[in-house]
């Protein structure tokens, strides 16, 4: 019986089944939910890409209308960045970070579940724009005034605005969680400079995120107010400057690209030492370089605006800062190479991906330095040369790193080994496929092929290379299909995985595959970097007494909850309300508040 005004629902305890997944607050399950949803989004973004490639495979094609084409490239970019790469990274943050720092879960388990459900809400809102017949159509960066209500009267842009706001809430919640978790839940003895590289890169990424997202939150509010309430933020007739949108977007957008790449760099920094049987070369330098990249990432944003007419002084300043940021990036690349130098290398599938990353990311970095120079960028901006650059760093970088991580940690989360031979074939197909798709883009770009055109004349001389790019994309599709086949088959019937199939270096490999719900029977005492490796090789002194963390008796696990999901549902309804019906938005808000209050006052059930 309760005397509170709100009827209390007992905390759910469902050991199995769908309710277990719906009310889970276990970081490992949440990681799997993120990974599965994000991978589906990756496939959807891939379909959007294939349609683009189909349309561009020949000159004067009319497979896709210009209107749909605009929606396709907008959704492809938005999906890949916000719905695929970021949440795939989040899947790893969720699953791996508590394991790497020797914790039982994250600092705020319910907030963690909420991040996932809010992400799912954002996913559905964005994809549903297609079903409503109006996907956003102004590029993933949505420049004003094309996005104004006058030039874009449908609901497409509203879907984009609301979708991104909801995703922003999800990302912010997750990042706040990981910052506190990494600072405050490390195993005894694990000082910051003993943390694994992936944990470090996650930490830096989360800090970047909580500082960058508020900027786009405001930009989106301003755009929405212009569209819905007739304000003047980007309305030139009132004296406004549409370039302000570009500034606000890219102040967010540039740190965002580091948010996209740093986790993958972290993954590569884990894989290379493991399969070289050598510690990461220059551990502290690699961390410092990551931190410097994150800091300098705030100083370069207008390199996306070199052709807008900012003037010679801003263009020069941003040229210098952009070139400078290549330095810490290069430092990391050298450190990775030196890690492998004289190592005892195993060319397993994850290792192939990590090495592949170094190759293709470096190519992307080289074209990046070419754009950095504002005068040469004047030729390159808005051509396929830029498209080549960012696909090399995002596909050849982030995606390669993520695939590497999927293979590397697959035994840990699935408890099975994948088919190694199939994995290698899949790697080569993907590697060759992506290069065939994106390398020719450098040439057509240099030759003047603009971005975002739905077709081109046969006289331009771009036809052959475009056809080749499309062929490359088919190879990518086959490779991804093979990946899915391997993963699904292995998850079902692969060889059971040992705790530590790779003879690796960090704490997640010291427990079973998959780990028990509580992760560690006893929280480990950490003495060094790569502590697990050191323990295995007997490099440490006296073993610390077991149970030395001061934890006695029962293991306390956080309890599942409905309320994160309810809160997310409120946001979901509220989102559609903002697009279509303000009364519905009020209903959504009310549900959200019920969710938040109930969450705050939720009782703790007894452990048994």
């Amino acid at each position: 019986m309760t005397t509170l005004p709100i009827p209390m629902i007992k905390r759910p305890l469902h050991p199995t089944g769908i309710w277990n997944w719906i009310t889970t607050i276990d970081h490992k399950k949440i990681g799997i939910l993120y990974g599965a949803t994000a991978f589906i989004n990756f496939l959807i973004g891939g379909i959007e890409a294939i349609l683009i490639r189909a349309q561009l495979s020949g000159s004067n094609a009319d497979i896709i209308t210009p209107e749909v084409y605009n929606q396709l490239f907008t959704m492809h970019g938005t999906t890949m960045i916000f719905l695929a790469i970021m949440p795939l990274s989040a899947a790893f943050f969720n699953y791996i970070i508590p394991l790497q720092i020797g914790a039982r879960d994250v600092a705020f388990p319910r907030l963690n579940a909420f991040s996932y459900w809010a992400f799912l809400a954002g996913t559905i809102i964005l994809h549903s724009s297609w079903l409503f017949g109006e996907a956003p159509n102004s590029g993933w960066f949505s420049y004003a005034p094309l996005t104004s209500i006058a030039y874009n009267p449908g609901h497409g842009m509203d879907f984009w605005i609301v979708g991104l706001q909801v995703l922003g809430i999800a990302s912010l919640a997750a990042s706040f969680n990981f910052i506190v978790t990494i600072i405050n839940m490390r195993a005894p003895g694990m000082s910051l400079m003993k943390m694994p590289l992936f944990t470090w890169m996650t930490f830096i990424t989360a800090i970047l995120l909580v500082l960058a997202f508020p900027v786009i939150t405001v930009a989106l509010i301003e755009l929405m107010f212009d569209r819905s309430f007739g304000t003047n933020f980007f309305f030139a007739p009132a004296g406004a400057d549409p370039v302000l949108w570009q500034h606000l977007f890219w102040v967010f957008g540039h740190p965002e690209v580091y948010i996209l790449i740093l986790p993958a760099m972290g993954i590569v920094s884990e894989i290379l030492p493991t399969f070289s049987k050598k510690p990461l070369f220059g551990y502290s330098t690699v961390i410092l370089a990551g931190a410097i990249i994150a800091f300098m990432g705030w100083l370069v944003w207008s390199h996306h605006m070199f052709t807008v007419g900012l003037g010679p002084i801003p263009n020069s300043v941003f040229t210098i800062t952009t070139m400078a940021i290549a330095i810490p990036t290069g430092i990391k690349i050298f450190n990775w190479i030196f890690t492998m130098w004289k190592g005892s290398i195993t060319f397993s599938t994850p290792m192939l991906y990590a090495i592949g990353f170094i190759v293709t990311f470096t190519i992307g970095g080289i074209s990046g330095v070419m754009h950095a120079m504002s005068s040469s960028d004047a030729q390159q901006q808005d051509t396929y040369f830029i498209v080549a650059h960012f696909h090399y760093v995002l596909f050849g970088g982030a995606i390669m790193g993520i695939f590497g991580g999927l293979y590397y940690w697959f035994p840990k989360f699935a408890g099975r080994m994948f088919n190694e031979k199939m994995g290698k074939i899949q790697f080569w197909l993907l590697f060759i496929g992506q290069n065939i798709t994106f390398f020719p883009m450098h040439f057509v770009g240099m030759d003047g092929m603009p971005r975002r055109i739905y077709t081109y004349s046969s006289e331009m001389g771009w036809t052959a290379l475009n056809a080749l790019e499309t062929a490359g994309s088919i190879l990518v599709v086959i490779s991804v299909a093979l990946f899915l086949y391997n993963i699904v088959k292995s998850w079902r019937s692969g060889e059971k995985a040992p705790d530590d199939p790779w003879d690796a270096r960090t704490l997640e490999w010291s427990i079973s595959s998959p780990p028990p719900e509580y992760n560690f029977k006893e929280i480990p005492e950490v003495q060094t970097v790569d502590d697990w490796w050191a323990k295995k090789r007997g490099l440490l002194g006296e073993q610390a007494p077991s149970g030395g963390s001061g934890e006695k008796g029962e293991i306390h696990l956080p309890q599942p909850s409905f309320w994160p999901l309810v809160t997310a549902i409120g946001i979901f309804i509220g989102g559609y309300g903002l697009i279509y019906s303000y009364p519905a938005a009020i209903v959504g808000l009310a549900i959200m508040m019920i969710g938040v209050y109930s969450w705050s006052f939720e009782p703790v059930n007894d452990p048994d």
Partner: protein
Amino acid sequence: MATENINKALDSNIVHTTHSEHPSAATYFKVAMALCLLTGLEVVVFFFEWLSYGIIPVLAILSVAKFALVIMFYMHLKFDNKLFSTLFLTGLFLAIGVTFALMALFRWFHVV
């Protein structure tokens, strides 16, 4: 019964901090008086038309002083672990930096 359970949940908020002194109510009141005085000064200075644009550094100093008083005393940052200051000030300094950068790019300072 449910109350007990709720209380147990909120027990996780229990902080047995060995820590930092808390200022007395008298100190808080003094800070409040200082805030009023500073605000009063800001408003008085507003009516000094002869200052013209010179009002900018004056207002900056006065408002930063108010800001600092609230942060250090009311929000207790002066007495708390430096980590809290680091976490907050990182956001604050970046915020100030981005604001000034945008102002520069929009020709506020007539140098670009």
